[in-house]
């Protein structure tokens, strides 16, 4: 999958398999999923709902354990939450009983560290939340809450940022604004980003690569390189290339849904892919 580059992946997912044991039987959510994310790369994961995107991301974060396979960060196997990995959750996930300052201080409190005030101030300024530190989450719009959540995730200077459908609950204008903000922050920090989304447009605008997961059980079905230079303007999104790419990805996802179960032969070939040095 690595196109000729020799550098080791920042985040390497190898044959990741996850089975949930539920009351109604075992549920195969991820099936031998392989994915390499290189340093300073933005990779989006799209796929039909329930395909295991969130499961994959939570496994990358160390919050979920895998049933099989492994995920390595800088070559070291992830066994639990890692200080080098920041997470931006769905719907901001701020603590409603804390004001913004206290919410951003939260990770430092847990770790027993002193907050890096200058860095936090810089981040707050970057996302346009200057002077909102005393506000409570309920006093802020959804977009502002998600900005604060991004600041919270970046406050500890992680080298990998995992974003789990962060803007799914926002209106499309706010979403575009947030997408530009993520790109700006990326240009600023070059943090490796893995981004889960339902929006193909969002995935194309943000990513160096878009990875399509197949319907349950989730495995990597397709991968698209997005070649446009950064910073990307919204005009790019209106070009023929983007239109075609969007449609191809859409067909992948819709086709997946209608496609029959993978045959034994396909399963076998996947197994061959799995075995590698």
């Amino acid at each position, binding site marked *: 999958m690595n196109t000729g580059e020799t550098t080791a992946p920042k985040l390497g997912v190898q044959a990741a398999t996850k089975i949930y044991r539920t009351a109604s039987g075992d549920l195969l959510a991820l099936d031998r999923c392989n994915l390499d994310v290189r340093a300073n790369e933005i990779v989006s994961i799209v796929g039909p709902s329930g395909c295991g995107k969130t499961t994959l991301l939570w496994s990358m974060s160390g*919050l979920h354990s895998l049933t099989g396979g492994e995920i390595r960060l800088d070559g070291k196997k992830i066994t639990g*939450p890692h200080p080098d990995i920041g997470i931006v*959750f*769905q*719907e901001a*996930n701020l*603590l409603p009983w804390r004001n913004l300052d206290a919410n951003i201080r*939260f990770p430092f409190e847990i*770790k027993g560290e002193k907050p890096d005030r200058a860095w936090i101030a810089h981040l707050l300024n970057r996302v346009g939340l200057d002077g909102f530190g005393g506000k409570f989450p309920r006093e802020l719009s959804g977009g502002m809450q998600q900005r604060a959540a991004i600041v919270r995730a970046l406050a*500890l200077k992680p080298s990998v940022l995992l974003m789990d459908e962060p803007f799914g609950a926002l209106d499309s204008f706010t979403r575009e604004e947030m997408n530009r903000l993520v790109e700006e922050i990326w240009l600023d920090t070059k943090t490796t980003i893995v981004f889960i989304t339902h929006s193909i447009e969002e995935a194309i605008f943000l990513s160096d690569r878009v990875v399509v997961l197949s319907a349950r059980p989730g495995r990597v079905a397709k991968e698209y390189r997005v070649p446009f230079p950064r910073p990307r303007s919204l005009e790019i999104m209106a070009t023929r290339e983007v239109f075609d790419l969007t449609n191809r990805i859409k067909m992948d996802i819709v086709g997946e849904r209608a496609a029959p179960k993978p045959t034994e032969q396909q399963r076998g070939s996947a197994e061959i892919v799995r075995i590698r040095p």
Partner: protein
Amino acid sequence: MSDAIPEFSKSRSGAKSGDGQDVSLTNLSAFASGPGIQSGKEVAAIVAVAVIIIGGIELALRLFHVPLYIMPPPSSIAYALFDEFPLIAPHLGYTLVELVSGFAIGAAVGLVLAAVITQFPFAEKIVAPYILLLVTTPMLALVPLLILRFGFGYTPRIIAVALAAGPMVMINAATGFRRVDSAKIALARSYGASTLQIFWKIRAPMALPMILVGLMIGAIFGLLTAVGAEMVGGGFGLGNRLTTYSSMIQMPQFFAVVLILSMLGILIYVLFFLIGKKWASWEA
């Protein structure tokens, strides 16, 4: 290996709008939308209505020559309140001692039990019917027994108050502790939080609004039980004043004590209302 799936589906549909709602619907509106007075006009209206009601009762009672032993007019109750207060005050003190100490014991035990039991869902299922039994049994019924065992002092009353308040605090606090928001716990875990940190930084603050509701209900039940226990036996406390005055047909004094008890109840409500406004207003 066996972590639950539902976090995404749950947090999508419910986390933000849902979990705030179910609490505010049941109890929290008491904290959030209590009657707030906004203008002088409203104050004037409130005073005017009070004057009309109290004056109307006074007038009606005098006009129809209602005997004093059935219903004394408000003016004589007010007079009795001032006149008898030095005599009633120490009894108010006794009742407060029983209420505060019994409530403190009951609330402390109830809170600890709620925090511990909610960590073990299986144990919770086994204990639940007994808790329900404690909540629904009027603890007043035990007072004669407690008096037999502990005599006519403070002890049986404090025990009764603790038994009345504790389960109320516990059942509400347990509801609070059970409100698990897996996304918020995942957030804490992603920074490597320990179980203890998750309890103090996520579970406890999340349970706080329900804990306050439990404390308020527990305190009011404690007051009822304290007064009831005083009426059963022992020569002191506001409940004892009630039985004494009514047996001597001193109705103005009797109603003066009733008035003090209502004030005490309102005080408890206002106290927890203010605490809730300060510490749990985020819920609204």
